[in-house]
């Protein structure tokens, strides 16, 4: 027999398929590498700080679930250590021991990369780490869902090396030969830590949305400055080792759509109120019918499509209002 509380949880999983269920945690590891000159050091530090701040304060990820390594720990009290090869290895070990299967782990590399002798590296103080090195570290995180973003130049080869089940790999470049400094990272960090990239207006920014937003803006930046694009970010999350640039109708993107730094607001609304449960079910039903209708776009006459869509959306709006009303009563 299933208790009423359990019913509510099951329903939430159904309505927010793929979102973290209660009990799943999110962990963040941010590594800023060698800056080289002061301009880059400052920029990388700002990007890292922005992400760590958002993770802790905005998305309320427990401080013990956030690890921040940087070239110069003196620049920010949140930095837990220098981003050396050894400390990075230790950080992954900590992640492995602190997390559980099913948890979400975000690893973000900010800095410079290089590609020589067909090997991609991320530049750290002291010896660099190669894509293969990171592969070994990630192997400790099996059964977790890992978002790994390398925002450095020449990062494209990381996709092949790290691609695997349960992993979403984002790189700022398509190949190791795109060696120029990238602008993707700035847009990506801002998208992931802000609201601007909430493209589906569900109140959260998924990895998919952050990638799509940043990619679009990178394209626009190069176009508006009349420069030839020297970076083409890719995302791979189906484990085939081939990244996608355009995510709409792409082979990749399914996992990235389910990965958020922000907690699922629905999880906070777990309830045993039967009226509310009924409303949630009603909402899920309308959403499903909207999805079915969208499949018909272009196949039925536009006016009819719009009219049907409007009816469903009105139903959804009223349902949402009812849910809000009921939640307020609670």
């Amino acid at each position, binding site marked *: 027999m299933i208790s009423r509380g359990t019913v509510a949880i099951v329903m939430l999983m159904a309505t927010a398929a793929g979102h973290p269920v209660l009990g799943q945690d999110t962990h963040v590891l941010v590594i800023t590498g060698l800056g080289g000159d002061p301009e880059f050091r400052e*920029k990388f530090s*700002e*990007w890292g700080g922005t992400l760590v701040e958002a993770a802790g304060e905005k998305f309320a990820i427990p401080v013990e679930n956030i690890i921040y390594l940087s070239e110069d720990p003196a620049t920010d009290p949140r930095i837990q250590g220098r981003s050396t090869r050894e400390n990075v290895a230790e950080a992954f070990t900590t992640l492995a021991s602190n997390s559980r299967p099913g948890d979400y782990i975000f690893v973000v590399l900010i800095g410079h990369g290089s590609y020589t002798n067909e090997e991609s590296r991320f530049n750290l103080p002291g010896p660099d780490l190669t894509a293969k090195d990171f592969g070994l570290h990630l192997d400790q995180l099996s059964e977790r869902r890992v978002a790994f973003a390398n925002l450095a130049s020449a990062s494209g080869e990381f996709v092949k090396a790290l691609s695997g089940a349960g992993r979403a790999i984002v790189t700022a470049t398509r190949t190791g030969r795109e060696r120029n400094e990238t*602008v993707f*990272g*700035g*847009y990506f960090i*801002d*998208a992931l830590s*802000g*609201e*601007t*990239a*909430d*493209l*589906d*207006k*569900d109140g959260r920014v998924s990895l998919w949305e952050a990638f*799509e*937003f940043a*990619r*679009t*803006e990178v394209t*626009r*930046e190069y*176009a*508006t*400055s*009349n420069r030839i694009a020297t970076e083409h970010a890719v995302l791979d999350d189906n484990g085939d080792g081939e990244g996608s640039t355009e995510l709409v109708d792409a082979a990749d993107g399914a996992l990235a759509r389910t990965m958020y730094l922000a907690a699922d607001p629905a999880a906070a609304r777990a309830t045993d109120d039967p009226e509310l449960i009924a409303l949630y079910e009603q909402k899920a039903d309308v*959403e499903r019918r*909207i999805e079915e209708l*969208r499949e018909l*776009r272009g196949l039925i006459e536009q006016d009819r499509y*719009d009219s049907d*869509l*409007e009816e469903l*959306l*009105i139903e*959804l*709006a*009223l349902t*949402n209002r009812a849910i809000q009303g009921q939640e307020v009563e609670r």
Partner: protein
Amino acid sequence: MTLGFLLCAFATLSLSTGAAAQTLDEAISELRAGTYEAAIEALGEISRSDPGPDLSGDDRRRAYVAYLSALAEVGRYEDALEAVNQAPPAIVTELANTAGKILYELGQIDRAREQFLRAVQGGAVDRNSARLNLAIIEWRYGDRDDAFAAFDSFIDLYNGSTPLSSTDLTAVATAVQYLGIREHELFQDALRAYDEAVAADPGSLEPRVLIGELFLDKYNGPEADAALREVLERNPNHPRALLGLARAMKFNGTVGVMDQVEAALEQNENLTTARVFKARLHLEVENHDDARTELERALEVNPVSLEALSVLAASHYLRGENGEYRRIRDQVTALSPTYAELFNDVADLSVQSRKYVEAARLAEEAIAVDSLSWRAYGILGMNQLRLGLIEEGRANLETAFEGDPYSVWFYNTLDLLDTFEYYDVDDEDPRFLFVVHERESALLQPYIEQIAEEAFEALVERYGGYEPPLPIRIEVYPNHADFSVRTVGLAGMGALGVTFGSLLAMDSPAARPRGDFNWASVLWHELAHVFHLGLTGHEVPRWFSEGLAVHEQRQAREGWGHQADPGFLSRYREGLLLPVSKLNEGFVQPSYPEQVIDSYLQASLVFDFIESRWGLQAIRDMLRGYRDGRATPELMESLLRISMDNLDQDFDEYFQQRFAGPLKALEPPVSSPGIPQSPRTIEDWTRVVRENPDNFPARLALGIMLFQEDRFEEAEEHFRAALRLFPEYGGMDSPYWFLAQIHQQRGETERAAAALARLTALNESHYEAFLQLADLRTELGDAAGAAEAMDAAVLIYPYEVDLHDRLAQAHDARGDAVGAVRERRAILALEPADLAGAYYNLALAYVTAGDPAQARRSVLRALEIAPNFAAALDLLLDLRSGASPPRPDRQRSPVDIRPR
């Protein structure tokens, strides 16, 4: 085609290997190096010597041929014929081909034919060359089929087992080039044979010159240029190479073409082809008198030159002297019934005068006399495209291309036509046909329509209610090379827009770097041309139309159109600017790199002057006068009561008065001990300014250096001084720009805004200045002023989401709902990542504009992407209930972050 040249065998002389002929070898080397005088003297002496132990009979033959060649190359044709007459009878047959060539140059075709026959029948060393020359005469004046049969025999010669000399290989190449008219694949064989001719005698220049001319025929300017420069490296005085290079320069838009032709004529004043080319240059600037003088000189040398007669016919045609045109046309067709180049040349020159209908008709006449004239099909097709007859133009260009696929001109244009399927065509407004690339039509077209409508109405009013033939087709190209090909068939043209009548083509703002130009100003300029061409029946001179179009830009918006800068005024001071009476040359045959731009500005100032003194009606009357076929001097005399000389003088006085201050401030600084010649540091410039306090460049330079070191107080003093000296200067480094930055540093927002307002009233494309001005006005609470500045920025570069978002907000703030909708639609056209947000904001704008139906559609699109978009759902409920929705918060700008 320039296949009228007979094969010139005399420069392909093999050098002697005998020690006895060392002097002869040296003389031939001098001929090949272009030291003609020395070569002629030495060769003359050798050829008059009797054969003996030091000079074999063959050496003497070679000396004679070289001697005649040298004389002919510098145009001493009569001397050369006299030398033939003096030649010993034993070698006369060997000289016959060379003599025939000279007679041909003099237009004595029958005598030339006799000489060629003599060389062939007498078995002269250069008999193959003579045989080719006979075929060329047949091709031009006789039976084309017989000529082609003769050309065809050269393939057998090539394929035979006898090793061929460089001269023979050159003959083969030329024959194959003619055969290529029927079978285009043979052009490649012609090139190969020319290359083999070069290899057989690397010192011979003739095949190299012919390669250059072949490339010119194929509209391949860069290759022609390279080939001819190679010749000139070996012989810098080679008249035909000098002329060929002039043609290539013309083709490639290089300045100094006329000087280059003069260089050719300096070497050979009787080179009729150079005279004809020079005459064409004169005709391009409507200088018929000088053109005819050149043609007369050409016809004195060769009274039956088909090229000279054709261009003379063109001059009469363009002047409307139809009787004389027909007389010369009939003379040419009597001489050569299949000579299509007559019509092609007249058509080409008609295009220069913007007579596209006539050009197309003439090309049809060319095709009627020679169905193998691929050039005629090309001219016909290109001009049909200019007239908006796209499918007809394409069909004729395809015919041209099938016949001559090596023509870069045909290839480029057909390639461009293949992209036309990616252009959206909008014919909703009966006055216009907008053709905009699908990639940017949603974004650009609303703005283009708005400017086009405004310009059309303003110009109708300016020109007394006149309306040009409608619809006006407006083509906008996101790729500059495509625009260039659309205009001239080739990439690399520098212009931003072009008008062919009721069809104009222009660069879209995407075609150039941001801030490079103001596309709306260019569109206004081109639409002004539409009116000028329509009003005059395409009879308006280039300088008049260009100057008046810039003048119209100035009437449209403050700051639009070319503005004077120190460079322009300095060139005036140096005497480089042309008088009004010669301004056309500044557009068509610039003699210094900035001359075209200078001429635009200068011509526009002429119209500032004319309108201020005689009023707009005088300009309208002049346009009508051009339509009636009257010339500029006559119109000036009859309508303005001023001679061209006096106009030149009065305009000069106006110019000096208008720019009196800046001209004085641009005088070279006084040099005195202690003042560095090339000041570099602040200290250097301070000394220059101390001695020259009224020198604009010194004040500006010092101001900028101080500004760069954050010494704003000191910098301001010099910028203000610079402004007093040249207040109209609105360049990118205008003192206004720097003063605005200084005021902003000090928090003097109003003063900063005032400086930028002045700057943007002088510079139509200073994008950054417009954006800063908008920011400052927003800060000052001037929403209308901010919107005005941002509206102007969109006319420079409309591709930034953030600009449209800010502008939409500004329009919203001042209650301009229509403006807000336009900007929200522009954001959508830019395909932002946050499409749902963009649709939602558009829906809100529609609500404000009182258009609930469009608001519903937009909010549905937003919710289709993001079904749980709470604000959008609320808006939909409000729209559904029919209630006036409250003004919900607008979504944040889709792009309001920048990478750090």
